């Protein structure tokens, strides 16, 4: 083990240990007697720990190494942020409406886990998954269908590109009127939002195969469909996965925002907006954590699929 790394690990260890000790103090636990404030010693210790934390992150960032060092630095930074969030919010007695400490958010998560699971099923498994699948699938199919019609392509492509500048979520009230309050109206919004990025990306991807490869297929006397299946669709895969990844985030946003416009009595967006108006912030934060984790996990899953499907592509091999 080289010296800077050992040094860094020592700093991190000392920092985390003293952080744990400081966390045991009554001031940090919010258990001070009524009317007293944390003493000067507590603030001094907090300040010293902040210095230690910054130094440990700096040392960690200076360590050169593979990708795990970068992830470890980011993780350490995240741990410190959450730690000081907890410590300072409790010590300063910040009102719960402004910013609940992480411990309360975890508590709310545990206490309302069934409610949140219901919201997850309602929003993610129904509206997002179905809308995302339908919208992306339709976009893909339309793109392949108009592949041989340059007239339609020249007509659709500029309009489809323009939709990225339009706040498409705003169709949510109309979707609610047409499809009711339940998840189909949210799925409809998601379909509309995910359709165009997929259409544009697939059309771009189908043009991505090189001239040399196309001529090779031609010299093999491969027909249109053979060329499409063997060459042009595989070379469009990185574009298609790019659109799938963008669409995953768009679909979550679309479903959650559509629920702000009107929804049944469950769903992540419904939970966030109603509990925010009831000032029950810990539950709001835990609903947001659910949405955030869903977004990142969906992205990670898609990246894994892309590695499997487009393993030959330079962008995958390089990573």
């Amino acid at each position, binding site marked *: 083990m080289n010296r800077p790394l050992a040094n860094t690990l020592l700093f991190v260890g000392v920092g985390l240990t003293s952080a744990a000790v400081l966390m045991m103090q009554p001031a940090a636990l919010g258990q001070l007697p009524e009317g007293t404030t944390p003493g000067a010693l507590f603030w001094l210790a907090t300040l010293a720990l902040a210095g230690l934390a910054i130094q440990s*992150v*700096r040392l*960690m*960032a*200076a360590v050169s190494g593979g990708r795990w060092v*970068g*992830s470890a*630095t*980011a993780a*350490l*930074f*995240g741990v410190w942020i959450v730690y000081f969030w907890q410590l300072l919010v409790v010590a300063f007695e910040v*009102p719960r*409406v*402004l*910013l609940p400490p992480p411990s309360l958010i975890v508590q709310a998560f545990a206490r309302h886990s069934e409610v949140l699971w219901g919201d997850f099923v309602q929003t993610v498994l129904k509206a997002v998954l179905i809308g995302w699948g339908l919208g992306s699938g339709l976009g893909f199919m339309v793109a392949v269908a108009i592949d041989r019609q340059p007239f*339609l*392509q*020249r*007509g*659709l492509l*500029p*309009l489809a590109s323009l939709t*990225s*500048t*339009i*706040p498409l*979520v*705003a*169709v*949510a*009230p*109309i979707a*609610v*009127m*047409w499809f009711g309050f339940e998840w189909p109206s949210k799925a409809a919004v998601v379909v509309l939002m995910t359709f165009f990025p997929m259409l544009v990306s697939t059309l771009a991807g189908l043009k991505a195969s090189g001239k040399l490869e196309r001529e090779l297929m031609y010299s093999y006397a491969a027909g249109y469909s053979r060329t499409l299946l063997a060459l042009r669709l595989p070379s469009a895969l990185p574009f298609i996965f790019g659109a799938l990844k963008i669409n*995953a*985030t768009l679909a*979550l*946003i679309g479903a*959650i*925002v559509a629920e*702000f*416009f*009107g929804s049944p009595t469950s769903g992540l*967006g419904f939970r*966030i*907006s109603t509990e*925010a*108006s009831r*000032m029950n*912030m810990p539950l*709001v*934060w835990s*609903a947001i954590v659910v*949405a*955030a984790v869903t*977004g*990142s996990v969906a*992205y990670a899953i898609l990246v894994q699929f892309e590695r499997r499907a487009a393993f030959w592509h330079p962008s995958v091999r390089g990573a």
Partner: protein
Amino acid sequence: MTAKASQWQRLQRDGLPVLVMLVAALLLWYAGAVWLNAAGAIERVLPTDVPWTWQQLLAATMDMQRPVLPTPHQVGLDFWSSLVDWPLDSPRNLLFHVAVTAESTLWGFVMGTLLGLLLAVLIVHSRTLDRALLPWIVASQTVPVLAIAPIVLVILGSLGFAGVAPKAVIAMYLCFFPVTVAMVQGLRSPQRIETEMMHTYAANWWQALWLLRLPASLPFLFPALRVGIAAGLVGAMVAELPTGAVAGLGARLLTGSYYGNTVQIWSALVMSALLGLALTTAVAGIERLVLRRRGQP
């Protein structure tokens, strides 16, 4: 002469398909309106005692009071009358709502861009921030950050901020993420040989930033700005929902859906689409202006 002819040909080649698509969409819209409104028209508009002809049915579906799908000309008329029949400061005028939404979007856009630039400069110059903070900002791109909007509204509301500020803050943090990510990439885009030349000129980091890194990052900045302003508009409109706001395109959509006024929803929808297009076009115009002044293509 030849330039003119080729321009005409280009217009024919690129413009005609788009025009055909638009006309087809309009026709589909009319067909959809007839199809969706027919049931309501038979029930409410057409006489029940005497038989009616299909011409009557067609005319009735085109001109319903509260249609399931308003026809394009109904939306167009409502849109137009809201622009000319009411004074600019009346909440019945759509331009009033556009002004409200555009104001918070632009404030948020400007603040978010400045914040994103500042943070990107810091990240590029600090290895610690690069390793510790940048992964989180990149990861936040996969997270529906718009979901935090109600929390921001509650926090700023209880701190006593009202009006433009909360909406601008939401638009700001939506603009800020793409700008930061793109600018970190852009500020790092100069070649090694160029940074070394700045070094041999004994340029300090400020000069290197101003003369080399910022100009080199412009092609990365503007696409991010286009993404940012579109996201900021969505943020500003969503921010108008839960506050019971009476002004802004988002509030207009919500009141329209409360009262089942479909024509009003559709014209607000058309207006927000136009606003989105106008804002993006403005950013693209600034891009062209800046790049031309710098002599870049």
